[in-house]
């Protein structure tokens, strides 16, 4: 029934003839295809042939680029400059500038590099104007431990990136050994924690406090969200994933709280999403989640997230706890920095 309705609904959806015509007119105005530009192709080939020594050092990234994006390998400008720190080599493989956008293929090679590698927002495009950028993992070669990222940056004002300048790409750390365990049942009986739990007020917490979500709208709820009671962290009740533990559970202010300890979230970005499933198999989502940072006895930062459910104890008695868990095992720190010229292609 849904399938038929959905197909029927989509049948009339199509681009207008005017939109198609406008799009095609733009392609006619666009720069000529790069593959047909002999000057660029010759320059690329010349660069490749002129730098055999460098090529030998940075072969993994460039080979990967040919494998994952053969067209890009031909019209991106080869850079092939590398920098090694903490046993990991970062290579700027190739770059392309077009209008307001610069794109660079960045390769990381090293023992701690794996197919789950995440630059963890520690990268920077250093350019003398406001820009916004992102990096995505596009390839991993297990044989050479090489991960290739396509990093893109655009000017904020839409103005073209000036040719003839330089750009520096830097990286401070990356995460690897990342795992996702989704839709997991937590080995814990929520009903065992249906009693009132010891809570500390948000004011008592010395460090950061934040909250997100929230489906309440009445006045009581608004004040609750502004200063939600938080459970006092205890020892781990359950460890659903390495690096994520259930630190406390129980009722506070008439709502059922589940507290997760994430360790130092700034180090490994361990995080999760929790929900309950009732006796009918229906998901019960948290009304809101809140979090705070604290310190362990040794001074290390500990981050806590708390999921708060509006559920009566008699209903909770027949619920199970579930979650999606995302963890990393390795953080590699270093100072990788490469400056290279930008030329419009």
């Amino acid at each position, binding site marked *: *029934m*849904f*399938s038929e*309705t*959905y*197909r*029927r*609904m*989509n049948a*009339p*959806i*199509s*681009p207008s003839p005017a*939109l*198609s015509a*406008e*799009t*095609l007119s*733009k*392609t*006619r105005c*666009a*720069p000529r*295809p*790069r*593959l047909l530009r002999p000057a660029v192709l010759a320059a690329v080939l010349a660069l490749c042939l002129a730098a055999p020594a460098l090529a030998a050092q940075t072969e993994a990234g460039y080979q990967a680029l040919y494998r994952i994006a*053969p*067209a*890009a390998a031909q019209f991106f400008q080869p850079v092939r400059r590398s920098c090694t720190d903490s046993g990991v080599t970062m290579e700027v493989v190739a770059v392309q500038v*077009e209008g307001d956008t610069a794109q660079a293929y960045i390769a990381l090679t090293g023992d701690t590099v794996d197919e789950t590698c995440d630059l963890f927002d520690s990268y920077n495009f250093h350019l003398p104007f406001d820009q*916004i950028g992102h990096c995505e993992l596009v390839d991993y070669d297990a044989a050479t431990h090489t991960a290739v990222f396509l990093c893109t940056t655009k000017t904020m004002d839409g103005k073209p990136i000036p040719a003839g300048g330089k750009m520096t790409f830097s990286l401070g750390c990356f995460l690897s050994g990342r795992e*996702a365990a*989704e*839709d997991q049942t937590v080995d814990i009986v929520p009903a065992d924690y249906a009693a009132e739990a010891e809570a500390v007020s948000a004011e008592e917490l010395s460090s950061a406090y934040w909250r997100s979500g929230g489906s309440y709208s009445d006045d009581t709820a608004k004040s609750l969200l502004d200063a939600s009671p938080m459970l006092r962290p205890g020892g781990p009740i359950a460890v659903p994933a390495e690096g994520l533990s259930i630190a406390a559970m129980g009722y506070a202010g008439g709502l059922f709280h589940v507290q997760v300890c994430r360790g130092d979230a700034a180090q490994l970005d361990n995080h999760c999403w929790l929900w309950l499933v009732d006796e009918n198999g*229906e*998901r019960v989502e948290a009304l809101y989640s809140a979090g705070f940072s604290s310190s362990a006895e040794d001074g290390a930062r500990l981050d806590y997230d708390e999921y708060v459910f509006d559920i009566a104890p008699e209903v909770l008695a027949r619920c199970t706890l579930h979650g*999606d868990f995302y963890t990393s095992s390795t953080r590699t720190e270093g100072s990788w920095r490469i400056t290279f010229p930008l030329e419009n292609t």
Partner: protein
Amino acid sequence: MSPADTAGAVERYGAMVYRMAYAQTRSRHDADDIFQEVFLRYHRAAPSFESEEHRKAWLLRVTVNCARSLFTAPWRQRSVPLEDVYAYTDPAESAVDTALAQLPEKYRAVVHLYYYEGYGTEEIAGILNRRPSTIRAQLTRARQKLKELLKEEL
């Protein structure tokens, strides 16, 4: 890529790209923007394909990526004007439309590829660059949510 090649791709896959874009954004205006961006990228990148299936998958993937970029853009408007959406007079279609609007964007992409384009979860995983287990979980959750909203089995 010559303009003629791009014109051929627009003719053959334009509706597919537009539907995918609309399925994710629920906005004709956004779908228009994404449609243009996808085919301009196609024209500029001039990718080589092993088969028509490969070309189709490439276009769908770029469409999804463009929609994601749009969703994360700081200037994106969160409200969509009424004239910017397709209106359905049939009650069943209207109910499905309302339910779909309440699904997260990532679920809508999976639902569309599964129920309209007819891809399996493994193929969707390849197109969206996610793990098959993630796609299966997302599809399950999307179905549960739609089931709640529509009060029907999917």
